[in-house]
């Protein structure tokens, strides 16, 4: 073996040697960048197990180790309620979006009715409607209907999004018509065809929708802040609770770090399990744009 390597040495072209240098450089750069991306998260995780005085020290290993921040965030700072609220909203809104975006997407992709193209154009038009413009009118409308200060107004405006409907329609267009025709021959109506045939066939699209919508609702800060973020903390989501923690308890770094981890962890879990949906979702958004 040694002999071979030595013998081979003179025959290595100069280009290959510079290639080795190039690769070493490449790995050095990428590892350094990865460190910049990961250290803040590692640092936060480490601090979450520190005591408050220890959190001011620039050390990675907690001394002493304590889970006190994790316990108080659950009991004293009521993140249990915030997590329940966030999960509730994310689940309800995601489920509503699956059905309503699915039904609407199916109709726009497959059923023929007068004005279909015009109505679909209106759906696409809502994609261009910026939040900062509709903020005031939507707030005024929901106030008049007494839907401020609880979840109902927030759920109502998020029942179905144009992005999801558009996405489902595009997917339904790719499904061959044979399946529906077979269902029709069996005497199935439109609702049954949608429920029994089309929706199961659209499972890959639904998975992507679930992941992106759950993430979007879980991370949302702006609308919850406006619609139920200024009064009763019993309605706070994790993001609102974390913001409150930032504002009220600026020195409780271990607790603040626990709060950030709680706000990130579900999304990290989903991301690790379903990475390809995130990646393809972003890229398809790019194609669409």
């Amino acid at each position, binding site marked *: 073996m040694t002999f071979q390597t030595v013998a081979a040495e003179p025959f290595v072209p100069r280009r290959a040697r510079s290639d080795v240098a190039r690769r070493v450089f490449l790995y050095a750069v*990428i590892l350094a960048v990865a460190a910049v991306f990961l250290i803040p998260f590692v640092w936060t995780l480490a601090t979450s197990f520190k005591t408050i005085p220890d959190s001011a020290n620039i050390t990675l290993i907690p001394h002493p180790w304590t889970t006190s921040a994790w316990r108080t965030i659950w009991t004293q700072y009521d993140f249990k309620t915030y997590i329940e609220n966030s999960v509730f909203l994310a689940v309800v809104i995601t489920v509503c979006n699956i059905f309503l975006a699915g039904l609407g997407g199916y109709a726009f992709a497959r059923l023929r009715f007068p004005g279909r193209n015009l109505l679909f154009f209106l759906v696409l038009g809502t994609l261009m*409607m910026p939040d900062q413009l509709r903020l005031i009118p939507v707030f005024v*409308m929901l106030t008049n209907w007494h839907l401020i200060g609880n979840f109902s107004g927030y759920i109502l405006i998020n029942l179905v999004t144009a992005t999801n409907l558009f996405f489902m329609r595009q997917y339904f267009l790719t499904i061959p018509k044979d399946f529906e025709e077979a269902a029709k021959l069996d005497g199935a109506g439109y609702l049954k065809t949608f429920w029994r045939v089309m929706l199961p066939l659209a499972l890959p699209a639904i998975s992507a929708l679930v992941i992106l919508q759950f993430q979007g609702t879980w*991370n949302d800060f702006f609308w919850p802040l406006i619609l139920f973020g200024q009064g009763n903390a019993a309605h706070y989501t994790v993001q609102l609770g974390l913001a409150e923690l930032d504002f009220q308890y600026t020195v409780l770094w271990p607790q603040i770090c626990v709060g950030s981890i709680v706000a990130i962890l579900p999304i990290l879990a989903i991301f690790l399990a379903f990475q390809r949906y995130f990646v393809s979702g972003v890229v398809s958004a790019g194609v669409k744009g």
Partner: protein
Amino acid sequence: MLGARIREAAWGYGFVSVPLAVFGLFFLYPFGYAFYISFFHWGILGKQAGGGGMFNYAKVIHDPIFHTALKNVLEYTVGVVPLTMALGLALALVINQKIRGREFFRSAFYFPSIASSVAITTIALYIFNANGLLNHIIGSRTPWFQNASTATWAIVGLNSWTSAGTAMLFYLAALQSIPTDVYEAAAVDNTGAWRTFWRITFPLLRPAHFFILVVFGIGALKIFDQQFIVSAGQGGPNYSTYTAVLYIYREAFTQFDFGVAAAAGVILFLVIFAFTVVQWLTIGRQEAA
């Protein structure tokens, strides 16, 4: 036969009715309603006595706080967009090489993009604080977010780090769509890597540049969460973290002047619209040509 067509159309309208009601009520109608509100004195109790007019616009346009907010947002946009694009492109070029652990690095770089803005900003509060990790590394004592001259730039740094991963994904998709024979031709001509990049790759990425510029530019003009979190919703110190959307928010929910807030929303909408049109007429048009 006619009966079947009517039945199909009826089901079609039924399926799209709820989504269209949601979009009509919370997207299209508010578009007009926002303009309407902006012409009146409008408080928490609704429209107040007195005629309509342009006075809310006059107030916003002559308000020094709005000028500061707009200046901050423009500075932020001019800083964050090119930095995010450069970082995203650099990451994409590295990830596009044949390296071990590509998937891991791609995920590590992308993850901050999908984590919640509140959690990421909270972690930044900890790392950027006067006694924090960043200052320890660079040997400084700057309270980055509490200092009027550094707050915007600290958020520029934070957000280009956060969203570089998204830009990276767009650039990766674009890089992979460049046909390899282009590079083979360059290799035959013995063109160096640096020249190949600037003469061939960079210009061929023009559609991706355009897309990222528009999407990230619009996002930057609407920035809110990060400034809200670092200033506890106040926009301080000395208005340095006041953004246009924060101005709308504070006019509405601390001054309870919905007329002024709506007018500011319309103005911001026009700014964003003009920005997009200008981009389209300059870079976008060349792309189409």
